Structure formats: C-alpha cells, structure tokens
C-alpha cells in the first residue's frame, strides 16, 4: 500500500498533465484548481510517507536493497537489452528531499497563480519538472536516475524563455546548456560505471558492492563529481545560476534554487562518492579549494549587486558551497550537515524567491535602490523576507543555523590542512552574509516610502499561506532537529561505511 503511494509520487504529476491536455487553455480557473489539488495531494502523501520512514527508522529494511536501508522498495525490469531496471526506494535522506520538493512544488503552483501567457502549458511544465525532480530523488537505478535528471532541461528552457523576465532567452539558454553540459559529463561516466562494474546492473546498490578499478575511478570520479557539481553551481560552474534565476519566473526560481540545485549535491553524495570512495578520498581535499570562491567570495559578490534575484542567487551559491564543504569533510557529521543544508537551504531559498516574486509582482522592479519603506505597505511580505534573511544568515531557531553549525563542526573534524583553512574562512564569512542580507532588507523594507508605492497592497491569503507554511518548515527543523538528524544518520551510515572502508592507495602524480 505504502509502496504504491510512494510510486504515485512521481506518477500523479504526470497524470495531472494528461488530465489537463483535453481542457481548453482558456479555462484557467479549473486548470489551476486541478494543479493545486494534485500538488496538495502529493504533498500530503509525501508527508505521510516521511512520517512512516521516521517511524520505521531502525526496523529491518528490504534485504534486496542492501547495503542501503530502503523502504517502499520497488524493482521491475525495464530496458532488458541494457539491463536497466525501474528501481525506486526511500531512505531518510531522499524522503526528506522528496518532502522538500513537495513543499516547494506546492508553493510554486500557488505563487504562479496569475502568471502571464499560456497558463495551461506553464502548469503542465511545472508538473513535468516536479516529476523529474521526484524521480531523481526516488530512483536507485542509474539509467532511471539519469533519465529523470536530464528531463529538467526539457522544461527549464521553455519555462524561463517563455514566462520569464529580463534577459529570459539568454538566461534560459545559459541555464539549460550549462546543466546539459554537466549531465553529459555524468552520462559519459555512467557507461564506465556499468561496464567497469561488470555486474550487468545499473543499480546503485549492486554497483556499491563491487570495488571499481582505481585507474578508472581516478578519471571518472572528478568527471562525475564535477558533472553533478555543475547543477549545484560549484565554482567555476556557478555562472548559470544568477542569470538563470533572475530571468526565471518565480515558481521556476523556487524550484531551480530550491530543489534542482540539490539534485547535484545529492548525486555527488549518492552516486559519485558512494560508488567511487577511493577516488573521493583522493580528490575531495582538492575540491575544497574551489569552495573559497563559493563560500568566501560569493557573499562579497552579492554585496555588490542591486537586483534582488542576483543577490539571492549569490547567497545560494555560497550556501551550496557549504554543502560541498560538508561533503568534502568526509566525516559522518559533515555528511549529515551537508544533507541538512540541502533540505534547509531548499526551504530557505524557496521562501526567499517566493517573497521576492510577490514583491516584484507589486513593485515591478527588483532593484533594491528603487525600493524603500515597503515594510509599511506590506508588512506580511516584509516580515516573510526578513525571516528568510534571518534563516539565511544562520540565526538559531531556523534550520539554517542547525545545518551550518553541523557542517562547521563536521568539517573541522577533517584533519587536512586545506579543509581547515576553508572551514575557518567559512566560519568567519558568516559576517559577510549578515552584511548583505541586512543591507538588502534595510534598503528594501525600511526607510522612507517612495510616492509611487503608496498604493501597494499586502499579500493575499494564498500568498500568506505559502509564506506561513515555508516559515513553519524552517522553524520546525530549526527548533527540533533531533529527529531529522536521526533519519539522516541512519541513511548516511552505509555511505560513510563504504567511504571509511575504502583503502586509500597512493597514486603517483596526484599523491593523495
């Protein structure tokens, strides 16, 4: 029963699209009603399943899915010629990411209520995007995983270029092509994994049981890690995200920054590091060096920007840098911190982009120098933005603080010189984050109100609902993180076992 529900998670959005095909594009009311309902249903299903997974923590899982402890495990032969299966399952890590996705999708549908243009197509594309993201987090078969992973490119360009604002075609192309570039790097290594693994299976669990030849890992790991890192905007592949986010419509920014940028980090952890631990041990200490840009310079760049979405994009870049810091620490605490940061930053940036979109709908500008004092006119949205800001600068009580402190402590456990330096820099750069967030909030919300904004109105019920729910999530994780930490720890344990078991051979030239 629960297994069926679990599989419905990605099927329902697809069905919604099919249901809406015969409807005429003019009947937007019923269209939106259908989409909102389906998003809500999925949200409820996912929340229920998350609870179930939490309740089942520690129970013996399906032994077919060993070494991972997967619930709702489904495994059906799919493309027989290549030995690809339809393999899905849930453990603590991906069910939480699914919950995050469900929340963001739900919010995205609600905030794009009166979007300009052909709404039928837009909502269909949102649902397709949702399908792809759900699929990525659910699937444990590499072909299935990749199919869902690449699907996003199909939706992203159309959504950004047709419904976006500003340099939408440029932004859309930049985003889509860069992501495609990343996923092409992944695809190239996937074949290697299959043929070098030699177990005629694309299943992550099966491949994790064999140890791949070292010389293969040495070139495949960086290729695959970078491929995933592209979509998490790790320096130097971060350039797509500011332009993409600023061009995208609100819902797409929410989805892209909220959940799609996590897909990369998730892939790094679940596929690259899990299947190629030896190479990970050798390469990751060098990857850390790249984070100096993300974590330290990102906030400074945000400081120089005037466009709200650019600021948020660069803050995302710095926050995602922290995820990689946690991954590169290669300690249980660090990995948990990284996963926590994925979830927390999802909600956080979703809230950010949601409020920005609502404010943009009213002010028709995102330039903070033109705004001011709008807190007086729309206190609710203003408070929402400020709370998002606080969560962003890692204020205790919000999830951001939990994730960041976990990452810092975890990364400090890693006793390698470079990691230490970057960790110290990262801890010290929380000040810069505070600077740009407060500067933005003050310029935009405080101070005297310009004449042209006298007529602004506060958020309507729908918008308030979205903000309240997202803030509630942030606070919930921030105030009682214990349970979420348990779920993550149980699902990270096998990955860390594999990594710690990996003996680290000395490769001449790289010199681990």
């Amino acid at each position, binding site marked *: 029963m629960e297994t069926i529900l679990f599989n419905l998670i990605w099927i329902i959005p697809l069905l919604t699209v099919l249901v809406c095909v015969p409807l005429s594009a003019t009947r937007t009311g019923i269209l939106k009603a259908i989409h909102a309902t389906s998003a809500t249903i999925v949200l409820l299903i996912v929340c229920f399943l998350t609870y179930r997974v939490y309740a089942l923590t520690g129970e013996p899982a399906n032994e077919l899915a060993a070494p991972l402890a997967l619930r709702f495990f489904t495994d059906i032969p799919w493309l*027989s*010629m290549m030995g690809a299966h339809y393999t899905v399952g849930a453990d603590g890590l991906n069910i939480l990411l699914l919950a995050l996705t469900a929340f963001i999708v739900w919010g995205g549908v609600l905030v794009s209520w009166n979007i300009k243009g052909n709404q039928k197509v837009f909502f269909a594309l949102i649902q397709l995007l949702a399908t792809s993201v759900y699929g990525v987090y659910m699937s444990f078969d590499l072909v299935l995983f990749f*199919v869902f992973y690449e699907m996003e*490119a199909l939706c992203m360009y159309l959504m950004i*270029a047709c419904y976006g604002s500003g340099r939408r*075609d440029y932004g859309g192309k930049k985003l889509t*092509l860069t992501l495609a570039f990343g996923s092409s790097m992944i695809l190239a290594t996937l074949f*290697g994994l299959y043929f070098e693994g030699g177990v005629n299976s694309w299943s992550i669990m099966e491949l994790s049981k064999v140890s791949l030849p070292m010389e293969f890992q040495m070139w495949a790991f960086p290729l695959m890690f970078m491929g995933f890192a592209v979509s998490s905007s790790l320096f130097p592949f971060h350039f797509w995200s500011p332009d993409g986010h600023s061009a995208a419509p609100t819902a797409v920014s929410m989805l892209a920054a909220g959940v799609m940028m996590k897909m990369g980090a998730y892939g790094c952890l679940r596929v690259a590091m899990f299947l190629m631990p030896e190479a990970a041990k050798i390469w990751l200490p060098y990857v850390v060096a790249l984070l100096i840009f993300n974590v330290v310079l990102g906030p400074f760049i945000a400081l120089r920007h005037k466009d709200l979405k650019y600021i948020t994009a660069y803050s995302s870049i710095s926050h995602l840098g922290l995820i990689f810091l946690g991954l590169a620490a290669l300690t249980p605490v660090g990995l948990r911190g990284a996963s926590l940061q994925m979830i927390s930053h999802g909600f956080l940036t979703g809230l950010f982009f949601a409020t920005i979109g609502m404010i943009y709908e009213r002010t028709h500008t995102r330039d903070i120098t033109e705004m001011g004092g709008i807190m007086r006119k729309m206190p609710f949205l203003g408070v929402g933005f400020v709370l998002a800001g606080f969560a962003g600068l890692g204020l205790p009580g919000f999830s951001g603080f939990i994730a960041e402190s976990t990452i810092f402590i975890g990364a400090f456990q890693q006793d390698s010189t470079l990691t230490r330096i970057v960790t110290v820099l990262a801890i010290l750069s929380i000040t810069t984050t505070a600077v740009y967030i407060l500067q933005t909030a003050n310029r935009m919300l405080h101070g005297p109100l310009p004449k042209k904004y006298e007529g602004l109105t506060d958020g309507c019920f729908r918008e308030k609902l979205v903000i309240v729910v997202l803030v509630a999530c942030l606070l919930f994780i921030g105030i009682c993180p214990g349970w979420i930490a348990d779920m993550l720890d149980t699902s990270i344990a096998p990955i860390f076992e594999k990594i710690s078991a990996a003996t680290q051979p000395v490769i001449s030239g790289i010199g681990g």
Partner: protein
Amino acid sequence: MYSFFNMNFIIPDILLLLFPFIVIGSRLFCNYRSQLPWRIANFGFIAIFILLNFIPLASGEGRFFICNWKIDDFGVLMREVLIISAILGIWLSKDYFEHGADGKPQMHQIAEFIGAIAFATFGGVTVVSACDMLTFFLGLEIATIPMYALTAWNKKDQLGSEAATKYILMGSVATAFELFGFSYLYGFAGSLHFGEIQQAVAAGTNPLLWVSVLFLFCGIGFKLTLFPFYTWAPDVYEGAPTPVTAVLSVTSKATAIAFLVVLVFGPLAPVQEQIAPLIALLAGTTLFVGNLGALKQSRLRRFMAYSSIAQAGYIMVALLGPATTAKTAIVYYLFVYAVSNYLAFFIFGIIGHHREETFASLRGLSKQNPSLAVALAISMFSLAGIPPLAGFFGKFHLFFSGASTGHYALVAFAVLNNVLALYYYIQLIKSAWVDEPDGHLSPLRLTRRQRGVIVALSISVVALGFIPFLSNNVFAGFSF
C-alpha cells in the same frame, strides 16, 4: 533446398519488387486527376508492412533464398524501417501534388514519384539482404539512382536541378570509389560471396584488403554524409523538394548504414578491431562538424541537413560495439530517428505551405497554434536526445554499444557534442516559442491527414522511449 511453401518469408520482397511497376502501370488505366495510384500505393505499402510483421524473428543465421538472398532479424527490422519511411514519405508528399496556395500543385506525376520511392526502398531491402558483392552493389545503386531523379523532380525549379547535378556528379564519383574498393576486395578474396570473403579475411590480411576497406568506407561515407564527404548534403537537402529531403534523410541514410553494418559485421567482421579506429575517427569528426555547421543556420532544410549529418556521426558510434548490440542499437535508433525526423518535416511542410521555410517564419507559432508548437518542441528535443523522449533512448543505445567495447573517450566526446546539438535545436524552438512574430501571420491550414499523422508521430516519439516492451520487441522482433 526449400519447398515453395515455407518460402513465404520472401513474399514481401517480391511484392515490393513488383509494387512500383503496378503503381506506375496503373497510370495507364486512369486519367491524370485520378487518386487510383495513390490508393494502390497506400494499400500496397501498408500490406507489405503487415506481411513483414508476420515473419518470425530470432531465427539465428537467417534464411536464404537461392543462397545469396539472406533474411535475418536485422534485415526484417530494416525492411520495416524502410517501409515506414516510404509510407510517411508519400503521405508527406501527397499535399504537394494537390493544389497549393497559388491554385497550382507544386509537383506532378505522383505515380512515378511513388514508384521512384518504392524503387529506392527496394534498393535498401536488397542491400540488407545481399550475400554477395554484386547484389550488394546493385542494391546500393537501385537505392541511389531514384534519389537523383527525385531530387530533380521539379523540372521548373532551378535550385532543384542544381542540387540534382551536384548530387549525381558526386554520387557517381562515390560509386567509382566503391567499385574500386569492391574490385580490390574481390582481388583479395578471389570471390564475391561474403562467406568466402570472411574466411579469406580471417585467414590473413594484406594491403590489398586495407586499400579496399579505405575505398569502401570513403564511398559509403559519401552516402552516409561522413566527414569530409558530407559536402553535398546541405545543398541537396536545401535544393530538393521537402518530401524528397525527408526521404533522403531517412531512407538513403538507413540504406547506407545498413550497407556498413552488413559490411562490418559480415565480411569484415574478423578485422573489426583494426578498423575500429577509423570508424571512431569518422564518427567523432562527423558529429562534431555536423553540429558546428548547424549552429547558425536560418533555413530549415539546410539546418536539418546538418543535423542529419551529426546524427550519422552518432550512428557510427554504435558500429564499434559487438554485432548484436550494435545492430539492435542502430535499428532502434533508425526507428526513432525516422519518426522524429518525419514529425519535424511534416511541421515544416505545413509551415512551408504558405511561407518560405526559414526560422523566421516559425515565429509566433506558439501563439498561433500551440499544439503544433508543442509537437515541434517534442520532435526537436527528441532529435537533441533529451529524455524521456525517444531520441534520448536511441542515443543511449548507440552510446551503450560504443562504450561496450571501451571507447569511453569517443562516447564522452559524442555526449559533450549533445550540448552543442541542444543549443541549435533550442535556437529553433526559441524562434517558435519565444520570438514575437513581425507583422501579419498567414494562416496555417492542416488537413485531416496532417493532423492525424502529427498527433500519431508525437505520441510515438514520446512513447517509443520509455515504454519497455517496445525496446524489447525491437530486439526480439514483432512476432505475432
């Protein structure tokens, strides 16, 4: 020897051989305006397609008809691809024989047109079922010569005749290369029969063999538009009438790749290792050059020419794999490619009915006719190889076959080129979805046939990919 009764597997081929004569002959019994040839053509092709599906597959070595006409799984599936291509081709061309915008039809003599297409199809069939070089060569010629005629079908069209001239001149040179290659191969093996050639090759090699391989690859490289022999393609694709371009891009490519498959996994199978580098180089250069050429195109058919050049490169990647994998991958990809390509060409045909076929005339399509725009996006993303559309799975099979013998570098290169491909396909989608139309848009008129075909093709492009049983059947064959 076979008794007549269990020789029924040959019936479709015989019908296909007779079929063009029937169609053209039917002209004698009806007047100019009559739909009779068209009806016969539809009936005949569909009947042959259904008959083909009755042939049981997975029968190992395949069966022989007077010892040099072989019909194996690959052959049957290739026949199906060719027939589907022919059917779609004539459906696409039908509108050009009816009254166009200016009240006059754009093309004439539909019966001969269909006959030519049928001959070309039969040529392809001959290639896949040949067991000796002579049949092989004749098949190739039967497949090619009608194409020259088809290219120049519009006698009034200046570009058409220029294209045809370029095509036939270069085609004849390529034929000369092939013949030269064949002659050396004959000299090397002392026989025309593939079986004996294979034994000879297995026995040992000498420069004679390599010269012949070189010339054969160069000759077929022309038909398959490999680097640097692709130069005719853009001009011919642009000059020829749209339906002819579509047929060219599917049927003649299918014939050419079938030629290579038969050659590489037939007589040259023992030396596949040694010619792998050549194949890899051909594949890499071709897909790279094709993608580069397509980057900044403004005319649709020329654009499709470059895109099909790149596709040829992708197909070549599969030739590196072991026989079964490679054949499956190639046949599957040809199905997918035919469907996506024809979908695109149908849409271009509808656009081109009232406007000239350029990117600019696609503008505002999403406003004017959203469903057509969606179909266009589907076909383009499928050609670009974006999941969950069929094109992705087709490419995935190709790369899988290429990677199975460890050519990771080539696969990586091909996959990276996909990004380039995505770029220019997105350019086309942009002009249909994003760009605002400048001035008044002439209305788009879809006949019932067109609408039906477009819906059917769109659905199959979406479905062919991830519906698993289909990929199984492509492998195991449609056995009723």
